[in-house]
């Protein structure tokens, strides 16, 4: 084989391999927590019933395949590889579909997968549309270069079937057939292809309980039912344009180096990819993931590198500080801005209550953890169930002794790959009171939760609820520290002085000393009768701080010296 022929043979595969590696690195490095996020909002089960339930609506097979792949997003790099593989496969199919056209078109086949890659920066854009596009292009390739009435009819029969399997993105297949028919000067076949495609969602509207809008734009293409999955549709349109142009009969395709011309478009396009990443969301997802995995030290290390500032991320940090026993001494070394950073306000969505439910779980507020987790699962816009939520609900029921209910949450998890062994172990615990009470996590959780002295949850009385938890079980020091933290973050010094003595301290933590001294200084000019131990240095430091604030010193100056103190928070934060 002559050299140029060898290069021509190897170049497309090498380009695809390079593309795969680039996409894998892009997704793996820039948005690993977006990948984890996708996995936790589904519960893929290896069962016939699950397959039937998912695949029995338009786009169902693509949906099932997409979910089957997303389950491996349990590991971020596996997810990155899968996404890269889908994008590369789309490119390879397009490459083959554009074989007959001009050489320069070949590099343009990277454009549709790059568009999809850009779109996947939206964590709620599901993989259904890219998988559906893959199925459609694959089927279209089977009909490439086929002609004759039999072939046309076979192709037309497959249009509604592919619509059922892949959803409305199968229009690429139908329009691809039509384009091919036009070039073969078979307009009747082209019209039949387009009409059949248009009829599919209309017919489906009378069979399936979905509005026409969703049947046209894809039932599960986007997690929010009424939002269109814009980027895959743009990619589909770009694919069709490429296929249409590639079908133009050319006398000479052009030299091999023309295939590099596309780089002039692709490189600038690829350079836009980082703009698709929402870094704030990635950070939130990262913190949520670390809380889920109980990576307390890692949370603190991340915060040391890049201080979180949103309620959700700050609450994750505060939980990590509390779980590692560092909250009393170190909380105010980090950005704090009110009690929302401890217990974020409940919002009716499927993301923000999740870390808060973790906080409640560790506190022993099992009902509240269950409540928030249940709400998250019910709020998932595409009605999927969540493996993470099922696991937490099972744990709550197990702790509460509701074994029949716990079994209902555990059984679906036994039909998964990554939760199966945990679920089987949990199933073995059901009914075994001794084993549960002796369990290092469930036993203490049972002891911590309120029993007998019931009260209603009130998000404006968190300190009272936490105080009751601590009084119920003095071993629940987390409840005490969170209660003190809540009161301090609320700047309620009077309340802090009430709750502080509930626990006996050998040495009062520095932050508590600062709060007590501040409270005292409001009504006293000196510390002569101060009821708690304090050093002269501390008194002098407070005096200096108060002088600086009263003299109107620049906040930056005050921050430099006192930025890690409670005093600074009290005067300059949460206004």
């Amino acid at each position, binding site marked *: 084989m002559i050299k140029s022929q060898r290069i021509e043979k190897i170049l497309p595969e090498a380009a695809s391999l390079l593309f795969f590696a680039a996409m894998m690195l892009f997704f793996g490095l820039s948005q690993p927590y977006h990948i984890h996020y996708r996995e936790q909002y589904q519960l893929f089960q290896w069962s016939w*019933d699950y397959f039937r339930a998912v695949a029995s609506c338009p786009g169902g097979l693509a949906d099932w395949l997409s979910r089957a792949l997303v389950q491996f997003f349990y590991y971020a790099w596996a997810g990155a590889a899968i996404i890269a593989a889908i994008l590369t496969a789309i490119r390879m199919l397009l490459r083959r579909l554009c074989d007959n056209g001009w050489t320069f078109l070949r590099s343009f086949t990277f454009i549709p997968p790059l568009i999809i890659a850009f779109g996947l920066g939206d964590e709620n854009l599901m993989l259904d549309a890219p998988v559906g596009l893959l199925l459609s292009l694959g089927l279209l390739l089977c009909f490439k270069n086929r002609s004759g009435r039999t072939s046309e009819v076979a192709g037309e029969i497959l249009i509604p079937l592919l619509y059922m399997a892949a959803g409305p993105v199968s229009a690429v297949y139908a329009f691809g057939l039509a384009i091919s028919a036009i070039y073969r000067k078979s307009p009747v076949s082209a019209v039949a292809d387009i009409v059949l495609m248009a009829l599919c969602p209309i017919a489906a509207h009378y069979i399936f*309980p979905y509005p026409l809008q969703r049947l046209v734009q894809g039932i599960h293409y986007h997690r929010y039912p*009424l939002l269109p999955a814009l980027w895959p549709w743009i990619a589909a349109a770009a694919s069709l344009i490429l296929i249409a142009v590639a079908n133009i009969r050319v006398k000479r395709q052009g030299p091999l180096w023309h295939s590099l011309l596309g780089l002039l478009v692709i490189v600038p396009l690829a350079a836009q990819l980082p703009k698709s990443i929402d870094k704030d969301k990635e950070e939130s997802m990262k913190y949520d993931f670390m809380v889920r995995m109980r990576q307390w030290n890692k949370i603190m290390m991340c915060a040391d590198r890049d201080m979180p500032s949103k309620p959700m991320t700050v609450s994750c940090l505060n939980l990590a500080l509390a779980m590692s026993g560092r909250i009393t001494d170190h909380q105010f070394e980090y950005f704090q801005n009110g009690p929302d950073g401890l217990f974020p306000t409940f919002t009716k969505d499927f993301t923000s209550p999740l870390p808060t439910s973790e906080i409640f779980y560790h506190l022993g*507020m099992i*009902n509240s953890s269950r409540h928030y987790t*249940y709400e998250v699962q019910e709020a998932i816009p595409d009605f999927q169930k969540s493996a993470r939520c099922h696991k937490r609900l099972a744990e709550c029921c197990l702790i509460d002794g509701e074994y*029949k*209910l716990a079994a209902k949450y555990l059984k679906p998890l036994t039909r998964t790959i990554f939760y199966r062994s945990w679920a089987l172990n949990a199933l073995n615990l059901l009914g075994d009171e001794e084993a549960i009470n002796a369990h290092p996590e469930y036993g203490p959780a049972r002891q911590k*939760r309120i029993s007998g002295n019931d009260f209603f949850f009130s998000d404006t009385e968190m300190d009272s*609820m936490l105080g009751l938890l601590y009084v119920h079980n003095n071993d629940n020091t987390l409840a005490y520290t969170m209660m003190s933290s809540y009161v301090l973050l609320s700047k309620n010094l009077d309340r802090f002085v009430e709750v502080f003595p509930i626990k006996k301290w050998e040495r009062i933590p520095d932050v508590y000393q600062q709060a007590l001294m501040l409270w005292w200084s409001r009504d006293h000019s000196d510390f002569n009768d101060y009821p708690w131990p304090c050093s002269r240095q501390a008194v002098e430091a407070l005096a200096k701080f108060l002088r600086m604030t009263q003299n109107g010193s620049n906040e930056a100056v005050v921050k430099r010296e006192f930025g890690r103190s409670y005093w600074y928070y009290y005067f300059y934060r949460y206004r």
Partner: protein
Amino acid sequence: MRPFLKHICYLAALCLSVLSCKPCRNPQQTGCLPEIFPDYAGVTIPANIAPLDFEVSGAERLEMEISAPDGQSIKVRGPWADIPLKKWHRLTAAAKGDSLKFAVCALFEDGWKAYRPFGIYVSPDSIDYGLNYRLIAPGYELYSHMGIYERNLSNFEERPLIENTGFIGCVNCHSYCKGDPSFMSLHIRGDHGGTLIRSKGGELEACNTSTSETLGSCVYPYWHPGGRYIAYSTNTTRQAFHQSPDKLVEVFDLDSDLQVYDTHTNTLITAPSIKREGILETMPSFSPDGGRLYFTAAEHQPIPSGLTQVRYGLYYVDFHDGAIGSEIHEVVAPQEGSIAFPRPSYDGRFILYTKAAYGNFHAWHSSSDLMLLNLETGESRPLDEANSPDAESYHSWSTGSRWIVFGSRRDDGLHTRLYISHIDPDGRCGKPFMLPQKNPRKYYDCHLRSYNVPEFVLRPVEFDRVKAEKIINRPERKAFSFRWSD
């Protein structure tokens, strides 16, 4: 592979599978009843009910023979009692007024066990065509996939009438006039809120039931037997969340009133007797002759401190041709508990209601039990034959007044399942049976939604889902007018 060889392989596989199913030989006689799920031993069923499939708990397989008094029988084998439909109905038809006998053997790790046969009584009273109910997750404030479904009671067919995949919102409080689906009221909540009403089989209309004179949108519905009026409550409802492990949610009204909608004049009618200051009137129902409007009412208490003091009693006012009586008659005082969902039987003999320690949303109260009030004697008794240690809640009568369906959380303490009981003209209640399902263990284990508001229907509901979704998604709503009763 050659076709001949292929056939040989299939035959061999079939033989192996048959041979590996060891038949029941020389079983160990236990002398006791089998532990079956659902517990159908000793229940009373109508002849036209779907097969009562069940499993023996913990068993790998079972073999069973069902015998009718005339000698007909069915033999069933398998991992669960998968009873064939047609044969089942032949058997139940033959056993009307008598019992079917179930002789069960079950295979465990240590071999076959034979149990004492049990009977299922087949009532001569037939049951209505089907049930309509809502399926929704037993959650807190949010909900995912839900809808109104229709179940044919003679088989296992269930079809969706409307689901929230077709619009953003929720559906609830479906109601028919004595099981006749040509009279229908259905609430839609959410961005496209409204009430769909159909009268006398006419067109569905989307209505805005809220007026400036009433508390808000209409909630609990009940059709007047004449089909012209619908009694509604209006409620300002809130939720609170317990911290103690034995309770989860508390649902209560801050305020509530009653009114009656006249479908002919498009008017909401109310009266001072059912719209009193400081009194929570709710859950209306009409007597079968339409002459009385029953309702529950409680004195307002400060919330949350007085929540456990909120006790609803049962009352009625006269109703005649749109005129609401001014005198309130007490039927059951709220002495030892709180009453909810009074439902008169269509034969005028009884009122079925639930009673719990306090409040009116009894699905979340495990103490909630069914009570049967005998209207002739004026005495209420707990329906001990049907009650369980967990919550019994919403219930309704079949149109013949011989069957009741009610929701119960006895299965796992959270998910409401439907049970059906026979009640004879003297108020004696048969053991309830769980709504039959094919492979019930698998079905109910995987089913994470609760059954709400089961209502009997006489025939399949004619409901054009596509048209209904269009109506719901359009903004137009027919407004109600308001007047005080004469």
